[in-house]
């Protein structure tokens, strides 16, 4: 049974809620003196004459929003959900997009009315527990990274990058230093150059060594008075630890620039390495990647940014400060004394509170010892994956040392005409979610596999066996791979058509041209 769109099954008269009072606003048309003359089917005493207060802008035309009764609604979304793959269904080895188990305790905790039912602008005295959550999470993030401060409000990883780069720019500006260039490695996430460009910087690439790490010599050579910052991902997107990180930081600092670290892969080293010890100045942390907050089909994220002493004064508003036994929220009004150098506000309110409660519950559950085991098991699983597959799949950096949390393969051994895409889609037919495809860009036909620490050995072995067999087929040129997937809710979808003739909203058949 195909699941129709709500616009095909819902009606303007169907409703899945019962509202406290029956009389809806109705009227013949907008304008005029408003609503005094609008017939009201069941006027209640309080209701009379109120409509004039809508400024004469009563909406009268149909909006076109279909309604469904509650049983139909539950069924529609249940059926839709069953067309999704998810971490709850099986391994989700998306390299660089870490998908861990989302503990249900965290969902429960985030829904406590004392957190979920708080307005962001309540008086501080009524939200001390919420501010304590922010403060406790901040304490953990600072301690785990060995940094000096943390900006909690960024809404996602890329927003955190922006926060970090803005801190850097604000700090440079504060010393009157108007540098223009940000250096980014070729293998970086696309958000890195996009962020730097957004903040007004010119982006230049840093080359990599053949073993998949930043070329320190090339970097050092490029450093100069025009370079504001270097953005490094560590562990990097080839799954390798940047051995020379400290030397890079020292060189960057010596040139008067600052070091931004993309912390997307912090999950590989959490509890084992403190980025602060490597000389970085700012790093965002994707709470959903390292601390397992749910990502619900593409969001929400949450991207707190840890900062060095040099950058801390420039952090955005608002932030939480503990004064005596009480927590205070420092906002614009308090800014002049409390945060004279803050670069300002990045978003309404205080950040992704719903993610903070979950992340804190996750962190407390694991503790310092557990987080260390988390990164250890994640790296163990990735290396097991790498070594179990390197004989059938090209692993370009297999000789560069142990990988961190993800194993990188390329399409080099595939027969003519067989692509990474084919292999990925074939995995779907075996019951697995594919790995990340074609990223990082520096490796041809890249396949980036990140099992995470949440997979059992049995689960890894199943996945390895499936990928081995597909890899064999790819090497031997099995053309049936082009037909995959055959067992999914859909066969391959025509993405070109979607982009060439975009249909981005439902049109009623009657109104289609």
């Amino acid at each position: 049974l195909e699941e129709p769109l709500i616009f095909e099954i819902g009606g303007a008269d169907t409703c899945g809620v019962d509202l406290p009072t029956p009389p809806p606003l109705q009227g013949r048309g907008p304008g005029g003196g408003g609503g005094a003359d609008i017939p009201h089917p069941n006027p209640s005493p309080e209701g009379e004459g109120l409509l004039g207060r809508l400024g004469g802008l009563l909406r009268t035309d149909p909006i076109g929003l279909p309604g469904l009764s509650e049983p139909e609604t539950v069924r529609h979304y249940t059926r839709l959900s069953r067309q999704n793959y998810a971490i709850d269904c099986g391994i989700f080895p998306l390299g660089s997009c870490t998908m861990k188990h989302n503990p249900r305790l965290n969902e429960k905790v985030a829904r406590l009315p004392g957190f979920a039912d708080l307005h962001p602008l309540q008086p501080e005295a009524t939200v001390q527990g919420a501010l304590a959550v922010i403060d406790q999470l901040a304490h953990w993030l600072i301690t785990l990274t060995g940094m000096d401060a943390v900006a909690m409000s960024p809404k996602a990883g890329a927003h955190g990058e922006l926060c970090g780069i803005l801190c850097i720019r604000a700090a440079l500006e504060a010393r009157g230093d108007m540098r223009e260039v940000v250096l980014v490695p070729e293998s970086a996430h696309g958000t890195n150059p996009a962020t730097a460009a957004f903040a007004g910087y010119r982006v230049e690439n840093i080359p990599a060594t053949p073993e998949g790490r930043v070329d320190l010599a090339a970097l050092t050579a490029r450093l100069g008075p025009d370079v504001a910052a270097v953005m490094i991902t560590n562990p990097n997107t080839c799954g390798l630890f940047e051995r020379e990180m400290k030397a890079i930081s020292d060189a960057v600092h010596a040139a008067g620039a600052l070091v931004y670290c993309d912390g997307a892969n912090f999950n590989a080293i959490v509890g084992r390495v403190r980025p602060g010890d490597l000389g970085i100045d700012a790093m965002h942390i994707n709470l959903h990647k390292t601390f397992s907050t749910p990502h619900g089909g593409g969001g929400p994220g949450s991207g707190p940014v840890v900062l060095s002493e040099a950058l801390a004064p420039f952090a955005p508003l608002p932030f939480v400060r503990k004064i005596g036994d009480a927590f205070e929220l420092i906002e614009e009004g308090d800014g002049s004394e409390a945060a004279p150098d803050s670069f300002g506000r990045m978003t309404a309110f205080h950040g992704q509170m719903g993610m903070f409660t979950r992340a804190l519950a996750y962190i407390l559950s694991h503790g310092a010892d557990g987080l260390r085991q988390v990164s250890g098991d994640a790296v163990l699983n990735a290396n097991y994956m790498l070594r179990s597959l390197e004989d059938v799949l090209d692993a370009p950096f297999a000789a560069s040392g142990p990988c961190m949390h993800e194993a990188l393969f390329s399409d080099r051994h595939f027969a003519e005409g067989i692509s990474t895409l084919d292999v990925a889609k074939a995995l779907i037919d075996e019951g697995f979610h594919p790995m990340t495809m074609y990223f990082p860009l520096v490796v041809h036909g890249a396949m980036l596999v990140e099992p995470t620490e949440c997979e059992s050995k049995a689960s890894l072995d199943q996945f390895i066996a499936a990928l081995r067999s597909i890899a064999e087929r790819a090497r031997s040129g099995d053309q049936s791979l082009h037909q995959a997937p055959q067992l999914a809710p859909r066969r391959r979808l025509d993405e070109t058509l979607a982009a060439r003739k975009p249909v981005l909203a439902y049109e009623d058949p009657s109104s289609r041209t």
Partner: protein
Amino acid sequence: MRYLPLTDADRSAMLDVIGAESIDALFADVPEAARLSSPIEGLPMHAGEMAVERHMARLAAQNLSAGEAPFFLGAGAYRHHIPASVDHLIQRGEFLTAYTPYQPEIAQGTLQMLFEFQTQVARLFGCAVANASMYDGSTACWEAIAMAGRVTRRSKALLSSGLHPHYASTARTMARFTGDAIVHSPPRLEPETDFAALAQAIDGETGCVVVQYPDILGRIGDMTALAEACHAAGALLVAVVTEPVSLGALRSPGEMGADIVVGEGQAIGVGLQFGGPYLGLFAVRDPKHVRQMPGRLCGETVDAEGKRGFVLTLSTREQHIRREKATSNICTNSGLCALAFSIHMTLLGEKGLRALAAENHRLACLAADRLATVPGVTVLNHSFFNEFTIVLERDARQVVRELADRGVLAGVSLGRLYPDGDRRENGLVVAVTETVTAEDIETYASALEECLR
């Protein structure tokens, strides 16, 4: 450790395959000086679920939650009743624990939902196309200003004084780095919006005018004339809706000529959550502007057998393809919140949304009329939907604190939103939704009366 499936036996067997002596040995590339040999100091060790839940529950109990008190806060975040089925459905593992739908063949659930969401938002806003959501209303507002700049190639934005001050702050922060010019001043305590003055202020540099509807003081302005003025001058009109329920009663911005309509979707399905995660809504009236939009878009297509299906599309605008040339650095949307919004909107439907809006307005009128009877209270607004501003004879920030002590969460003081003073500090923005009872209004009025006495 309950979240870790590997046993010590598994670990040994796997290390044998790898050819490593220990897990620590896998971190050999980390310089020894930076490698910690034991758990980080100063932090507690792992804890059982019961202990963690107790800790968190204790912190939660230190807050006064909205449900525990007569509650009248709005100013960009609204408390509405969310049907239980919404939360049930968004907790389905297949929604909750899925990633961005990069493999559309096994993500049709998320994709079809996003397509439905986009359509709902577009229709609600009176627009042609909406995206698949953004972080929140304030960042969507900035993205709209940035987009207007790309479309018009002009860098000046006139912000209505009725725009939420956090939205204006956010735009100002961003503009400081991009070099755009933001013109904005705090609102005056007048019953009408500043739309007429804005129309006057448009000049040849103006890329866009940004208005909020209803605005931060709850006032409702007709933007038809302003839209005409914008278009005449080659500028775009950006409308910001922070309370989408209002559009169940009010004409849509698109209908009145707004070019970009953005909003905060939190009011429908998402809940208060102390400010996040929320749901940025973003739509354009004219389909030709689609390629300048930021954020993800879901589009309809067909599969190899000709069956209808959905994919993320037009991603050539986005950072993972365009890198430094992308329309925005945004990578994440607010998918789970969009799902909650879409489910709640589906439960409401047109009939329910209109009834909900009517009930909100009815109760707000009731509250405004009752509070107006309190000595020392003046209701500022001539027009409002479910939120209005009252003016007291002393600093409202202090009154709000005193009322909180009496167990009433009375609203958002203008002194908190505009700490610069300038005679706004006596203003108090009061929101009234369907969750407020007549008894709550009475409790509020009595407490306020005592407090002002």
